[in-house]
Structures are given as C-alpha cells and as structure tokens.
C-alpha cells in the first residue's frame, strides 16, 4: 500500500512499438513515484522515452507492461471511458505547440474542458475568468490564438489546463516553442501554481538548466530507461 503522500506510482512500466519486424522499446521497465505537490522534471535527450512516459501517466497511452497507479487506480486497466474521465477530472495538460484550437477565442478554448465535464453554463464563465486572470490574460479573452504571442498562447493553454482544477499538471516541453524569456516566465508561472495551489507538476524537458532552476526533482531518462532520479533541493 503506497503512503498517502504518494500520488503516482509507475511500476516497471514498458512501452513497445512494432515497426515491421523491429520492436522499439520506447520505455523500458521504468519504476517511478511522484508525491503530492511535487514538481518533477523528466529530463532526457530526444527519443529517450520521456514524452512516452508522460503520455502513459497522463492517461493518453497505455503501457505494454507494468502498472501506473494514480489515486489507487491502475491506469493500464481502466476502460477507455474511465481513462477519458481521468484525463478530464484529474489531469491538466500543456503541450509544446500550445494546441489551442485556432477557430476559437481564448475564452472558448479555456471553456472547452468545462463543456466536456458538463459544468453548468453559468459557473463556466466565472471559472474561465478566474483561470485567465491567474495566467494574466484576463484582457485577452476575446482574442483568437493567432492574435496572441507564443508566450500568451502557452499561458492560455495553461489556463485551459487549470480550469478543471486538476490534481496533476502534465507539461510536455512547455518551453520548447518559446524564447528563453517567455520560457522562464512560463516555468515561473508553473512554479507559482505548484506552490499556491499545491498542485503536482510533471514536466518533460530537454533543457537541464530550466529543469534545475524550477523543478524540485529531476528524473533522467536515456534510451527508455530511468538512469537517475534525484531531488534538487
């Protein structure tokens, strides 16, 4: 039985892909635990398996073997609809390429998870406003993504990830498409959210300096294996 402080427990998780005759081990027997309120950086070079591991912990993908337990549920055994509900209610996601829907305004993008969660229409407006204010985009709510800078788009994506008040925030290379100033601003924002809301954040990055500056803990992956796992400070 994992201790109460433990939120995610990956047990010997593997993910294989088949390309014709070849079998690619994207993630190979990784075991990892994440505690509540932790800011974990999954560090590694391109193809190290960090994004695949993040996808499995976020419920977007399933491990070929092993188990990922989140709040006493093994994600590998959940039905597709249960996994969708996990993503909707427990998880928030931020991507490298922002992934805001271009035809929607910023507030409509942020409202999308609330529509999926069938939140009352009246409550939505206040929650959207609250999320946008938190990331400093209250004045840009009617703008479309194309009218926003990269940093603003990523902050908008962060507001969308936060609007359903998730327990865990997954960020896949959130600074990958940003300049260093905007990248630092985003990570500062993540750090503030972690501290103020007590949220658990798991971030994939290949930028060691940023990981060392903002994360509590760094797990290093190489060729699908966890090669080091250490607390920063």
């Amino acid at each position, binding site marked *: 039985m994992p201790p109460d402080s433990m939120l995610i427990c990956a047990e010997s998780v593997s993910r294989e892909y088949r390309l014709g005759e070849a079998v690619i081990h994207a993630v190979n027997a990784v075991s990892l635990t994440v505690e509540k309120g932790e800011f974990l950086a999954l560090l590694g070079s391109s193809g190290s398996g960090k994004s695949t591991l993040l996808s499995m912990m976020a419920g977007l993908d399933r491990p070929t073997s092993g188990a990922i337990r989140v709040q006493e549920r093994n994600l590998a055994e959940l039905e*597709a*609809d249960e996994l969708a509900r996990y993503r909707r*209610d427990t998880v928030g996601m931020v*991507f490298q390429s922002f*992934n805001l829907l271009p035809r929607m305004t910023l507030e409509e993008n942020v409202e999308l*998870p609330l*529509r999926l969660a*069938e939140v009352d229409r009246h409550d939505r407006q206040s929650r959207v406003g609250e999320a946008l204010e938190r990331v400093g985009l209250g004045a840009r709510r009617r703008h479309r993504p194309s009218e926003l800078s990269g940093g603003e788009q990523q902050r908008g994506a962060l507001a969308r990830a936060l609007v359903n008040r998730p327990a865990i925030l997954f960020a896949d290379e959130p600074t990958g498409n940003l300049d260093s100033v905007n990248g630092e601003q985003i990570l500062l924002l993540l750090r503030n959210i972690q501290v103020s809301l007590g949220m658990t954040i798991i971030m994939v990055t290949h930028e060691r300096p940023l990981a060392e500056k903002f994360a509590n803990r760094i797990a290093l992956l190489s060729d699908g294996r966890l090669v080091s796992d250490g607390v920063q400070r």
Partner: protein
Amino acid sequence: MKTRDLSELAVRNLREAVLRNSLTTLGVAVGVASLVAMLSLGVGLQTLASQRLTRSGLFDAVFVTSQRNFRGPRPPQPSDASTKKDSRILDEDARQQLSKLSNVTEVYPQIRFITEVRYAGKSESTSVLGLPDSSRSSGSFDGMTGSFFSSPTADEAILQIEFAKVLSDQPASLVGKDLTLRYAERAALSKDADDDALLDSMMGSGKPGGISIVPREKTLRIVGVIDSDPSAGIGGFGGARVYLPLKTAEQLHVAQPDDLQPFLSGNSTKPSYMALTVRVHSPRNVPQVEAAIRQLGFATFSLLDATKNLRLVFTVFDLFLGLFGSLALSVASLGIINTLVMAILERRREIGILKALGATDRDVGSLFFAEAGVMGLFGGFLGVALGWLIGSALTWGTTIYLHRQNLPGVKISYVPWWLALSAILFAILVSLVAGLYPAVRAARLNPVDALRYE
C-alpha cells in the same frame, strides 16, 4: 457533453469550412429537392385526378333503380326471397326516403327526353337532359361560353356546341336568344265518366284511371354554349344536346319511357322514376349508403371500385417517383461521407486535443454525428424549399402551356405538410447514416497519434 454544447460546437465546426460544408449541404438539398419535386408531382397529380373525379360526380354517387324493371350494368344481385318480396317502385315516396338517409346530400331523377327544338324558323329533333344544381361545381362547365343557369328553376338552356352549330353558324351568338321546346307532356286522364267507361272497354279491365299525352311548348333563354359533352358515363350527363335545370325539366312532366309501367300496374296517379342518382358527402360514404339503399329494396350501382384501382395506380406511381428521388439523396449522402472523412483528416490534431482534454470516444463520435445531422437538417429545409420551387415552376409552365391550348390551368404539384416534414426527417436520417462511418472512425483515433499529426 450536453446536447446544446454538442450542437454549438457542430455548427461552429461547419462554419469553419464554410464553402465545402455549404456545397455538401447543397448536395443534400438537391437530393431532397428532387425527392420533394417528384413526390409533390405524384401527390399533385393524384389530388388533381381525385378532385376532378369527385367533381365529376361519378365517384360520390350511387345510381338507384327499381329491382322490378332495370338492374343496370352490375351483374344481377342475389335474388333471395326477401329482396324479391321487398322490391319497390322508384316513386316520389322512395325519393324522399332516400334523401333522408345519412350522408346523402342530394337525390335526383334522370330526366332525359327527345324533343323538337324550334329556333329562327328551324326545327330540329334532339335529346334534352335535366341538370341538378350540383353539376354547377362539377368542373364540366368551366370555361364555357356564357354562364350556368341563373337559378335551379330558371327557364334557361345550355346548348352543346355541335347542336348550337346546327342552329347557327355562329354558336356563341346564340347566348341570350330564345328557343322553343316542343315536347309530349304526361298528364293524368280527366275523371270523366264517359272517358272511364271508354277506357274500361278499351282495356278490358275494371281498373279505373289512365294517362294522357299532350303536346306542349316551352320557351327557354339560351344562357351558355358548351364545347365538350359534360361528364359522360353511367348516370352522367353525357349524350344530350340541350341542358335544362333539373327542376325546370321536372315541371314539364315530359312523358318518359317508363310511364307505361305504373299505368299497366294500375297505379297511374303516382309517377315513378326509371332511375335516381343519390349523391353522398364523400366517396368514402358510398358503400354504407349503397347498403342502406339495398335494404330499402332497390338495386344500386356505383363506380367505387374504379377509385380503388386509381389509388393503387397512384401508390405505385408515388413509389417509383420516390425511388428516383431517393437516388439523388443517396448520391448526396456520399458527399457527406466524403466531407466528414476529409474533416477527420484535417482535424486529426483537434480530435487529439479534445481527447487529451477528457473527451470520450462517444463525445468525439457524437460531434461528427451532430455535424452530419446539422448538414442534413439545413439540407432538408433548403431541399424542401427548392423542391417546392421546382414544383411551382412545373405548375407554372404547365399552366402557360394549357392556356396556349385554350384550356384552364391546373395545379400539378402539391407539397403537403407531411411531405415537407418527412423529407426533412429523411434528409436528417440519411445524413446521420452517412455520418456513422466518419463518426466511428474519428472516435477510434488514438489521442497520441492524433496529437503528433501535423
């Protein structure tokens, strides 16, 4: 996701690729329009035929004869002991009794006789027919020169054009002129003792009474000249050349071929009819009224079977028109499939984002399904409007053609509310079926693969 949110997102998505989605919706609309236009043509022609036949008076009429004298064209009815016993003479009492039956609107005799017509020094023999006032609305007199009788008892006549040509080189000029009928009037023989004795001795019987035939003349104003022979057929008005109001014809007491029968049966004071026409509210009432009349001891005949066959023909006609119309809609449904499959390819990443945000397979599938339904809904409405326009254009073109042929215009296309509603529902149904495959395909997309898609 709630239905309202689903609909909003579906409409929003459709607005994004407005040209492609509009063209697909237009494809559905054209399919629905062809279906509606074809079926409206079928419905219109059926309505037109039904109206014409109903107005002709052939299908809402029962022709009644006495079982004693004339059985009409129908095969002899079962002549059991009771019907033989109850068979009755078709006299004024019987006419009154028939007019009191439920759903009966009118009972009138067929008064037809040969007479001599005098006009401008000419004398011609021809047949005369009494017309009930209800024949005014039969459609047979639409477009004739002049007008229908001013009243049911007017001393007026309508001439059939062939006969009018005999009387004048310019038939239309006869309207407003007077002609004289010379006919044989039937009257009861006066009760003179000497006459009775004479008749008794002639007939060799002790039965009193008799009829006399007296030549009479009647002047009538010509009010119309009709090109066609108004509604021929059993009990119809065909065959005659001069038409009078029925009541006017009755008041003439013209000797009829069957006047001899009551005279021979010793009941010469009560005139009888050879046949009566019983008009009912609707063709639906014909079987019930026919049965009631037979119960009274008379023979009946109606053309109801012909209407049944007509309905069968139109049902098959509608079926074929509907099939051809549906073909166009089937082609349109392929357009929907194509549009939505293209949309899946274009919106693959969006599907991945939706799934990452917590959308279930069902949410994603429903969204594509709703988009197909919205296209069907708009296509259905647009198609009904387009179909109605096509039908109206057909009616307009036909009317112009008929007017050029000096014929009255007709409405050949008709879109009843049930056709419009069914077409819209059918369009939505076809669109939803077409959207099924793309919806399932979108729902099954792996979110990781979809998010990777550029």
